[in-house]
């Protein structure tokens, strides 16, 4: 944002200087209706983002950090869920001993969960993660390749 503001200020200075030059030349400056300075409107970057990243400009860094942060948040989310499930199970069996006696299709609950159900759950979690991680990367690629 500061870049854009700087550029806007520079543009403003340039037009003021031109106005002064015109006055020195003895002409009346042409009247102009000032509506709104274009500070908030989106500007097209001079470079494609890939060049900003290659040249390690501040803008390129912002893009890179946002990618890493998005992916890290996703990873951290999966790890947190995993930690709650995996870390919670021993505690659950310890604090609610009745659960250990529950039977699922004839098999004690701890055995049914730990030697059966948890594996498909891992695969499902992994599949959801892969889908979201690839989506994040696609979004980033679109952002970077968008050249206007």
């Amino acid at each position, binding site marked *: 944002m500061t870049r854009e503001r700087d550029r806007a200020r520079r543009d403003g200075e340039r037009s003021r200087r031109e106005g002064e030059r015109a006055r020195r030349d003895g002409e009346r400056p042409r009247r102009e209706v000032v509506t709104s300075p274009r500070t908030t409107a989106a500007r097209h970057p001079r470079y494609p983002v890939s060049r900003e990243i290659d040249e390690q400009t501040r803008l390129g860094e912002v893009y890179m950090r946002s990618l890493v942060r998005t992916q890290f948040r996703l*990873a951290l989310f999966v790890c947190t869920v995993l930690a709650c499930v995996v870390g919670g199970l021993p505690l659950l069996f310890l604090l609610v001993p009745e659960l250990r006696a529950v039977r699922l299709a004839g098999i004690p609950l701890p055995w049914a969960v730990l030697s059966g159900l948890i594996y498909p759950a891992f695969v499902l979690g*992994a599949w959801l993660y892969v889908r979201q991680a690839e989506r994040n990367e696609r979004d980033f690629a679109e952002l970077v390749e968008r050249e206007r």
Partner: protein
Amino acid sequence: MSTAYGVTAVVLVVLAAVLIGAFGIRLSRTTSDFYVASRSVSPLWNASAIGGEYLSAASFLGIAGLILAYGADMLWLPVGWTGGYLVLLVLVSAPLRRSGAYTLPDFAEARLESMAVRRVASVLVVLIGWLYLMPQFQSAGLVLRTVTGAPVWAGGLLVAAVVAVNVISGGMRSITFVQAFQYWLKLTALAVPVVFLLIAWRADGSPGLSAHDAATWALPLAGDREYGLYSTYSLILATFLGTMGLPHVLVRFYTNPDGRAARRTTLVVLSLLGAFYLLPAVYGALGRIYTPGLERSDTVVLTLPGTLVGGVAGDLLTALVTAGAFAAFLSTSSGLTVSVAGVIGQDILKGGVRSFQTAAVLAVTVPLGLAVSARSLPVADVVGLAFAVAASSFCPLLVLGIWWRRLTSAGAMAGLLTGGGLACGAVLATIIGGPHTGLAGALLAQPAAWTVPVSFTVMVVVSLLTPGRIPRGVARTMVRLHTPETLNLDRGDWRPRPS
């Protein structure tokens, strides 16, 4: 039990390994052949190869043995060995592939731009590899003794010799297809007998556990193990975080064409491992019913078919399980030996083909010596210790290296030395000085719960204290690690050194 079938099974598997190794020489000569050829490998084949190399004696024999001996608490072991791949998937798989590193020392060098950190990583790879190889050789001895009555050292020597010859001649390892085949062989060798065992158990009137076992053995945290809750959590931490730091796993990830394929491969690995790990619990539970007083519980997978099915069918099933066990020893040992030999040859000796051959001999003789001389622990326990060392050294290095820009070479070095050193100390104390009792015994036998946090803390704190040592190319490295390969970006020019 007839020895003829068992001997035939061992001879067939060993012969197949040697022959495939001999053909492998012609199929691929250099690492770059391996690398180029691998670009056309699909995720399923690649994942089968990872599974084939990963499922060791500990998975094939050890888990069932520990479940037989200690009951429900041990169910966490296969859960952790599978779940470790989920953690690996979300935290490291794609960035690690994109880093372009063949080995963990390569990654350390690429990320931290420091040869000193690389050397420490190399030493740790060798230590973890040896710790992992030792129980493979011990179990080979145990299996050969159970099947043929040979002395305990013979099986270990056989596996070590076959692996050394294979690795030196350059075969075996480079062929993804062979390792992939090993996975399916191991799955079949464990799954087919289970069907027969369950039929025999039904025919026997489906006997249940004894009343005492049903009240203690079958329930988590109910056995007579001291500090059960601490041990369970420490085991979970070691297995979930240790998987990513195993030296023989990383090289296989390089076989993926890009980061996206690395993720998909990991997803398939999770499914394959999940399918395999449904089986050991069945062996453990049936073993508790039929052979509760087994002297060496690691042999339960081998003895059950003979006990329950009997006759020629029992002998054939025993032969099948024996073949699967030897496939497990050979595939895991080959993968580990190549990784360890590569690191010894390149970072400790001078490099080049001769160094690699010397290194391969070193890589198998040291653990073979340890296997013969050391106290014999349950195989899955020793492998668990290798996971603990990996979790307290390479896990922080990889996770912080990939996600945290402010990691410095000094911080990484301090963390590797502290975490790896403490974990190795605990391992030595357990294997050589043990078994210890009480709280100290639990802390030493399952060190991960305290060594992993210590390692992470040291790495972060020392990095924050040495901000001047942040690698100069970190921004470029981050681009390399995290951006999809389809984007045309400058990723720096670091390449792993040819081995």
